[in-house]
């Protein structure tokens, strides 16, 4: 009954002059409730201690373990081997810089993204430690949380046709981030301000609408709706720029 699994894993260590990109094969007996987290750790501990991959929370919460699983971006920790065929091919996520084997540098990419979209609340209000908190409608708080559930795993970027073709495309994750601040009443930026950030081919108008992002999002974020919402908003913001009373 128990299957024997064959893992084809991409190998390359850029810091080892002798290393050349290739695939290695590892064989493991499948055990109940096996995930790629369990399997890859077992391979590292028992077969090849140099194997590089990233896991952190191992519970689908932190987004560290994005990888291409049989060609599809996904989180290794929450991928159960029983949902896969007995031959499993693992590759690092594209777009991001390779660290080695299955490990990529998402940190640098995302840090640059925060700088581009100025990923923080813009407000003139100064925090007063003696005052009651500013009130907020619970439904708005929940709406913000819905968009803030993103774990920055990079799967949407890896699954995006535009991001694969052009390096400067912000990707669904950045646009979702903008949408999050756009609906936040604490952020005082205007639509025109957001237009300056994403009203280009690098931003919302570069999206080809293939929606690979939403298909592969492990947190099932409503990326399609957000992209549509932003495109309409930014389209209108573009028109307003030409009207004498439009621009703020």
């Amino acid at each position, binding site marked *: 009954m128990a299957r024997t699994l064959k893992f084809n894993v991409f190998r390359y260590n850029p*810091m080892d002059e002798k290393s050349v990109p290739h695939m290695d094969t590892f064989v493991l007996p499948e055990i109940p409730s096996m995930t790629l987290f369990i399997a890859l750790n077992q391979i590292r*501990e028992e077969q090849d201690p140099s194997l590089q991959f990233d896991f952190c929370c191992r519970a689908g919460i*932190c987004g560290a373990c994005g990888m291409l699983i049989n060609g599809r971006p996904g989180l290794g920790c929450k991928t159960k081997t029983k949902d896969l065929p007995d031959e499993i091919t693992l590759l690092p996520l594209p777009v991001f810089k390779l660290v080695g084997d299955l490990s990529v540098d998402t940190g640098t990419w995302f840090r640059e993204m925060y700088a581009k979209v100025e990923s923080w609340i813009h407000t003139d209000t100064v925090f007063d430690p003696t005052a009651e908190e500013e009130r907020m409608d619970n439904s708005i708080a929940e709406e913000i949380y819905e968009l803030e559930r993103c774990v920055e795993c990079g799967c949407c970027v890896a699954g995006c046709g535009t991001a694969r073709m052009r390096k400067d495309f912000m990707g669904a994750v950045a646009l979702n981030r903008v949408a999050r601040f756009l609906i936040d009443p604490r952020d005082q930026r205007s639509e025109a301000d957001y237009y300056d950030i994403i009203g280009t081919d690098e931003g919302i108008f570069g999206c080809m609408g293939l929606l690979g992002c939403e298909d592969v999002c492990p947190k099932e974020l409503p990326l399609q709706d957000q992209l549509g919402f932003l495109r309409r908003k930014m389209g209108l913001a573009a028109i307003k720029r030409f009207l004498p009373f439009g621009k703020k």
Partner: protein
Amino acid sequence: MQTFYTDVLSIGAGLAGERVAIEAAGAGFDAICLSIVPARRSHSSAAQGGMQAALGNSAMGEGDTPDVHFNDTVKGSDWGCDQEVARIFCDNAPIAMRQMAHWGVPWNRVVGGKGFYYKGGERFEKFEKPENEGLITARNFGGTAKWRTCYTSDGTGHTVLYTMDNRAAKMGVQVHDKVEVISLIQDGKRCMGAVARCLKTGELRVYLAKATLVAAGGFGRIYRESTNAVICDGGAHAAVLDTGVVPLGNMEAVQFHPTGIVPTYILVTEGCRGDGGTLLDVNQERFMNIYEPEKAELASRDVVSRWMMHHIREGKGVKSPYGEHLWLDIRHLGEQHIRGKLREVDDICQNFLGIDPVKDLIPVKPVQHYSMGGVRTNKDGAAYGLEGLFAAGEAACWDMHGFNRLGGNSLAETVVAGMVVGGKVVEYLQGAEAQFKTSVIEDQVAKDRNRIQRLIDCADGGEDAFKVRAAMQDALQDGVHIFRSHNDLEQAVFQLQEVHERAKKIGLKSNGKGANPELALALKMAGQVKLALCVAYGALKRTESRGSHAREDFPERNDRDWLNRTLATWKNEDDDLPTLNYEDATPSFEIPPGDRGYGGGTIIPMDNPPAGKED
């Protein structure tokens, strides 16, 4: 080799580290946070339930004040905490939560009018005051007199960390991610920074700083079964212990969380019980209401964990291929609540157990969860033993948790301590001058380079780092768990001493080039075993039961002899045990030691009990 200079170096870019860095950046200082992973993957992100702060906005939190919060915290700690620190914490928590709201956390808010909640499986009605509509609301957590836990669904840590990291980015705090500290640079008096290994290239780097902060989280991964992320392995603690002069406080105080799922030990939040979930046994009967008629499932974590293990020992556990477990039942909370307010729990159940918590019971058992112990600091967050070294968050033994921490108090601690300690670090920086001794730096780098080369060359032997780690984890798991006794602890110490010898003989099987993961483990393995020895040996010597430290051979809480804190130092590299010293648990009493009101047990009183401000 690259060398970086900064005012504040934080080892760790989770909530505590970033909060301190933000405070420093706000005062005009440079700050760099080092992180093994991108900042937003820090384990802070995994905290689901919430943060305690006595805002008193919600109906069930009415009348709450920092005083009530203080009472709960001190009782929760089983009088093991520093009461001055607990006071600082409770007074500042509401400010810190409001500040996080101002910075962008989408806290759940009060919705006015009639609503429902569950307790012990039963449905009750509550009425939220319309005038409080829109203020930060709270949910129920264990060990508290009021509903006090601020939350964003069950993604609280996630949203607070993202907001904090946004703020850090805005303030120009640098995060160097995929960088792991392997040793501190110090001359026995002053800490000057750290030697780190880049986990992208494998190269060594030197970080020099006026102030160095350890904010690297817990070290739960020294246990076999833990809820902690794989990065919570105590690497930074090991570097601190290696200084030989900085003590770790209360390492034997290890918290076990009642609801780790079986078999992966991923945590499902205490919010499940707070929101009305119940624990059931093999007969699908409730039992916590029998052991703790008043608090039932919502007694503090140490108490619930012990009763669960007790109940399993009584033959009421559910047998499984992964050992015995119990059930967590949240089905009665309904689909809307589970898929909304407990969505991560829903996801975890579906993804890792293949069950639907709306219809199915969740298999749970107590699992290592939180380290009350850590780098011992004073109330300003300054570490003992070295000037210029600070610690905050779970990595620290700032000691507001004593021997058991309450749910929702750790996530709150990261932000509150970050704010308070951050202020103290700024004060320190304002009076500090950079003094870096090149000879000390060179010596430390040479030592680390030598260590790496010897591992690669297998100069000391060919022990497998992964096998050594497994042996350490087994020794702790089997010998230093929820119920402890002399024989088991002595056996664990003995085993760990053997493992320590093996750890000194590790040699790499791979070539160690680049971001080699085997080398990363090998570099901290001996240090991890030393941490494990601090836990086991501290537990062996503490002949009483207090909070999470439950000795079956010494069931009383002994305030006469043990109302103190263990300080563990590793004096010499050749030692095979830590040196233990003790200091008073608290410099002053606001509440004299008394009964917690749950958990039972007898108390051996102090000879001259203090009067205290209250009672």
